[in-house]
C-alpha cells in the first residue's frame, strides 16, 4: 500500500492557481526527488503534503499506517529566528513534541531518541552550544536531527542544501542516502538535480503542472529532463 497517494491535486494562493492536475504516489522506501524551476510550486506542494496548506482540489491520502504528525520536516526557510536563544539539545528535542502527548517533560524513550540522533549527526559535542552561534551547515544538521526525532518513516526535505558550500552539500546528500538505505522514505525538493540523480528512485518534475513523474531511469530519457538538464547531462 502506498504511503502517500495524490490524485488530481490542485493548489492555489487566494484563487491564483500554482499547481494543477497533480497525481503521484510514494511507496515505503522510495526516494522521491521533486525538481523544477524557482516558483514552480515545489514548496507549496510540500506544505500541502504536511497539511500546512489547504488543497484547492483533488485528494491527498495517507496509507500504510502513516499518521499526519509522523512526518519529519526540514523546511526551506525555518520559521525560527536567527537570534533565538536555544541550545542544540532544546531544538532537537522539540522534534519529539508529537510523541509526548500532554506530558510536561520528555520521557526516557524520547530522551534516548534525541541522544541517538544527536550522535548520528555528529552533534553530541555541540549539544550544549547555542543554536544561533552555529554555522549554516551545523544549523541545517540540527534541524535534520530534529526532523529525525519526529519520524522513523517519512522525511520531507525542502532544499536541504540551499546556502551550503559544496563539501557540506555532498555530506548532506550522502547522509540522506544513508537514511534511505536504512528504510526511511525520502521526499526531497532540490534544484541541484545532478547531485541527486544517482540517489533518487523517482523524480517528480513540476512546472505549475507535472511535466514528469516516474522512475529516475525513465526520467533521464524523457523530454522534460532533456530540456531541464540541457547539455549538462549526457545519458
Amino acid at each position: 500500500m502506498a504511503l502517500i497517494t495524490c490524485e488530481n491535486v490542485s493548489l492555489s494562493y487566494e484563487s491564483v492557481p500554482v499547481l494543477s492536475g497533480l497525481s503521484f504516489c510514494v511507496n515505503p522506501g522510495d526516494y522521491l526527488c521533486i525538481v523544477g524551476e524557482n516558483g514552480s510550486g515545489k514548496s507549496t506542494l510540500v506544505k500541502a503534503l504536511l497539511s500546512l496548506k489547504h488543497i484547492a482540489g483533488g485528494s491527498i491520502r495517507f496509507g500504510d499506517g502513516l499518521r499526519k504528525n509522523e512526518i519529519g520536516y526540514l523546511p526551506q526557510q525555518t520559521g525560527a529566528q536567527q537570534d533565538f536563544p536555544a541550545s542544540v539539545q532544546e531544538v532537537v528535542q522539540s522534534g519529539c513534541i508529537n510523541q509526548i502527548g500532554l506530558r510536561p517533560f520528555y520521557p526516557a524513550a524520547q530522551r534516548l531518541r534525541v541522544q541517538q540522533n544527536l550522535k548520528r549527526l555528529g552533534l553530541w559535542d555541540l549539544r550544549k552550544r547555542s543554536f544561533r552561534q552555529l554555522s549554516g551547515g551545523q544549523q541545517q544538521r540540527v534541524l535534520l536531527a530534529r526532523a529525525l526525532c519526529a519520524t522513523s518513516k517519512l522525511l520531507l526535505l525542502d532544499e536541504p542544501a540551499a546556502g551550503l558550500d559544496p563539501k557540506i552539500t555532498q555530506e548532506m546528500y550522502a547522509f540522506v542516502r544513508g537514511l534511505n538505505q536504512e528504510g526511511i522514505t525520502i521526499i526531497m525538493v532540490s534544484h541541484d538535480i545532478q547531485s541527486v540523480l544517482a540517489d533518487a528512485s523517482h523524480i517528480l518534475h513540476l512546472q505549475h503542472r507535472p511535466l514528469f513523474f516516474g522512475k529516475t531511469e525513465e526520467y533521464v530519457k524523457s523530454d522534460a529532463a532533456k530540456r531541464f538538464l540541457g547539455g549538462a547531462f549526457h545519458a
Partner: protein
Amino acid sequence: MLNVLIQMFSYPFLLRAMIVGVLVSLCASLLGVSLVLKRYSMIGDGLSHVGFGALAVATAVHAAPLAVAIPVVVAAAFLLLRLSESSKVKGDAAIALISTGALAIGVMAISFSTGANMDVYNYMFGSILAMSQGDVRLSIALSAVVLVLYMLFYPKIFAVTFDETFSLATGVRVGWYNVLIALLTALTIVLGMRLMGSLLISSLVIFPALTSMRVFQSFRCVVISSACLSIVCFLIGLLLSYAWSTPAGASVVCANIAAYLLFWAFSLVRQRLRRKPMENA
C-alpha cells in the same frame, strides 16, 4: 536597611502592592519571553492601552473597574493576535490605531466624568495605593494559573515559540497555544496595570526577556533568568519608590533599565575575554 524594610511593610497597602507586584512581574516575565521572541511585543503594549481605556470608561460610568476591563482586554487580545498574525502590512498599523484610539477614548471618558487630572495620571503611571484585598486574591489565583499552565505546556511553548511551521506540521495546535499566551497576557496586564501604570506595564513583559537574552543562550536559562530578574527588579524598584517617594511603576522600570545595562556590559566583557585567548592561540 533592615529597619527601612520593616517600616515599609508595616503599611498594609505596601505589603499588598508587593504581593501583587511580585506575582504580576513573575507572570509577565514568563509570558514575555514568548511574546518577545514571537515578535508580539506590540500586543502587550496595545493591550495596556486598551486596558487604560476600559478602566477610564468603567470609572466614568461607576462600574467595577476589573469587571469591565478584564472582558474588554481579553477581547482585544484575540483581536490583536489576529491582526498581528495576518501577514498584511496593515496589521501593524491597525494595532497602533487600536491602542491610540483606546487611549483617546479613555482620556475623553475621564475628562467628561470628573475632569480630574489626578485620575488620568494614576491610570497612566500607576498608583501604589490602588491594590485592594480582592486584587491580592485575584493575583494569587491568576499567577497560580499562569505558573501551572506554563510548566504543564513548557515543551509546547518552546516548540511553538521556536518554529511555528514545524510545530504545525507535527500536529501541535499552534493556534490554541497562541490564544492561550495572549489570554494569559491580557489577564496579567489588567492586573498589573493599576499598580504599574498602563504606559509602563508592558515594560514588565519586555525588559526581563530582552535582558536575559543578552547573556543566556538556552531557552530554559532565559526563562528562569527572566523570572528571577523580574522579581528582583520589582522589589528594588519598590524599595527605591519608598525611599525616594517616586512612583512605583517608574522606579521598577528604572531598575529594569539598570539590569539591562548591567547584563549588556557583562556580555560585552565576556565577548572580549573569549576573543582574547583565541587571538593568542
